[in-house]
């Protein structure tokens, strides 16, 4: 119930957005069953949203600790490259996945150590990996698109299970797992405490440093998973372009999800809806068929409108305005000014 109340603004936004897209593309909500698979724009969004969505899960945790992880897009490229390299070097599917996830976790560990132990500010610490990580990924692929034909790996990007795209399932499962891990254990509380006030938390005996490192590792793992999905999607690792600028989308999603960049309270569910909102904007723009030079302006405008509407300050002002109006209506007889409104 409280969860529902927390995510209500995001749900409303999503619904409004869906209505808007439907206006431009009437078939938006239609879902058909073709060869036992559900197909339709909505399924595309669920599938395409997997990459941003996975990044968003990790990013939510990082943001909750008052950090930010700019490297996730790059980490996707690294883990995708590792996966493609492994599978083309006759590593088993399980081994490949393990290697790719390990790469993601290692990247997260590096970030976490720079932030928590060396004390470099998160933006800068992750900026370092953001720039050099693509080099590492290209080192693995030698600058080419490393293609593979392993059906098992490709299944993770374009397969279906019970008619639902596998990336959507992965995304959902990962989010659910981490959300449960946070809320069924004390991790959620401890992460929030460290995010609000690290020094007070440390004095209360919270192992802030380890927790911070863990959060970045989680972000790295999520990015690793997203990297696998993106490589599986195109059956190849594109070190240069995989996840390019996706970190910005992920951060946007976290904020649209109502989480504060100043750390503290977080909601993974709300972040996920944020990711869905972003993906709906992207897909909606493609479906609506505007010339591509308008893409960015439309996206910027929509994001701005959403941010403005969701701003807590605005909600507060509305309430005050509403109260003042009510008072005016109740107290004073309708003045000329009030009639004018």
């Amino acid at each position, binding site marked *: 119930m409280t969860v529902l109340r927390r995510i209500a603004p995001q749900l409303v936004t999503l619904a409004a957005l869906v209505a808007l897209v439907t206006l431009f593309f009437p078939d938006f909500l239609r879902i058909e069953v073709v060869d036992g698979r559900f*197909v339709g724009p909505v399924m595309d969004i669920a599938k395409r949203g997997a990459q941003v969505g996975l990044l968003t899960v990790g990013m939510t945790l990082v943001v909750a600790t008052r950090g930010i992880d700019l490297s996730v897009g790059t980490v996707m490229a690294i883990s995708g490259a590792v996966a493609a390299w492994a599978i083309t070097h006759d590593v088993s599917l399980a081994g490949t996945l393990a290697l790719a996830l390990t790469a993601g976790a290692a990247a997260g560990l590096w970030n976490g150590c720079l932030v928590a132990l060396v004390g470099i500010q998160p933006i800068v610490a992750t900026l370092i990996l953001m720039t050099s990580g693509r080099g590492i990924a290209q080192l693995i692929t030698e600058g080419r698109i490393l293609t593979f034909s392993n059906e098992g790996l490709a299944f993770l990007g374009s397969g279906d299970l019970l008619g639902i795209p596998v990336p959507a399932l992965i995304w959902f499962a990962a989010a659910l797992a981490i959300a449960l891990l946070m809320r069924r254990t004390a991790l959620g509380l401890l992460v929030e405490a460290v995010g609000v006030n690290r020094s007070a938390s440390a004095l209360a005996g919270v192992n802030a440093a380890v927790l911070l490192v863990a959060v970045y590792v989680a972000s790295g793992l999520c990015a690793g998973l997203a990297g696998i999905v993106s490589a599986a999607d*195109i059956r190849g690792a594109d070190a240069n372009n995989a996840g390019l600028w996706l970190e910005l989308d992920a951060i946007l999603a976290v904020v649209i999800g109502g989480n504060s960049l100043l750390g503290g309270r977080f909601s993974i569910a709300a972040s996920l809806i944020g990711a869905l909102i972003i993906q709906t904007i992207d897909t909606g723009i493609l479906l609506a068929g505007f010339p591509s030079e308008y893409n960015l302006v439309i996206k910027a405008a929509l994001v701005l409108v959403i941010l403005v509407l969701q701003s807590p300050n605005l909600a507060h002002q509305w309430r005050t305005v509403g109260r003042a109006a009510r008072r005016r209506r109740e107290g004073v007889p309708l003045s000329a000014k009030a009639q004018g409104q």
Partner: protein
Amino acid sequence: QTVGFSQIGSESGWRAAETTLTKQQAEERGITLKFSDAQQKQENQIAAIRSFIAQGVDAILLAPVVATGWDSVLKEAKDAEIPVVLLDRQVDSDKSLYLTAVGSDLVHEGEVAGQWLVDHVAGKECRVVELQGTTGSSPAIDRKTGFEKAIAGHDNVKIVRSQTGDFTRAQGKEVMESFLQAEGRGQNICALYAHNDDMAVGAIQAIKEAGLKPGDDILVVSIDGVPDIFKAIAAGEANATVELTPNMAGPAFDALKAYMDDGTVPPKFIQTDSKLYTKADDPEGEYERRKNLGY
């Protein structure tokens, strides 16, 4: 002899191949190559050229990221008497500022692709979807122009949807998926024109996943001639590609050598072939020939 090479970056397999081939060519000729990767930034390229000048290299190869904005740095090179050869893309500076340009005509490439489609459909109604390159990049603009030029006057062929796929496989696939959704699950699409092969390869996967046969249900024509598209052509999943050779450095070094040996001034534009390849042109063989070039 030292030659500085300012490369755009390593944003695609094609460019990686160009870099590899340039390094190979330099090595074969005993030239010391100073390589600089600008990571898609013109400002880095300008800075790199200035550094080359400061270092006193003998010649400069430049693969310009964009056509405009090179005047002053080229003038500086000219003042320092360092010949500059442009690779694969043109600049709109004064022609006296560089020795020669090696490359293909991007508009022409688009025309070749468009002409193939016009010929192939032979008057039949054909609704085309277009995957553009990165918005604002010169290949995207020119290849679009060329294609439109070729289909102009053929009312049966028309572009119904056009979106950017950023020259990448992933975007090519994603945008193609939305094209398929938007055009009656692909039933209303006759052909796909992609500004590069990578996007085409991504789109082919999207077409397959939508249960259609690329190359059959939807014709696929694209540009570059990277190994993977030959594989697709061999498998009947793509129909045609226009080659852009990554070996721009060979002719460039030749021209430089001639110029330095006896002052032979090369023509201002050394155009490479824009050869069209289809299933008839031994795609398997072409694939084998290219697969180790660093694409």
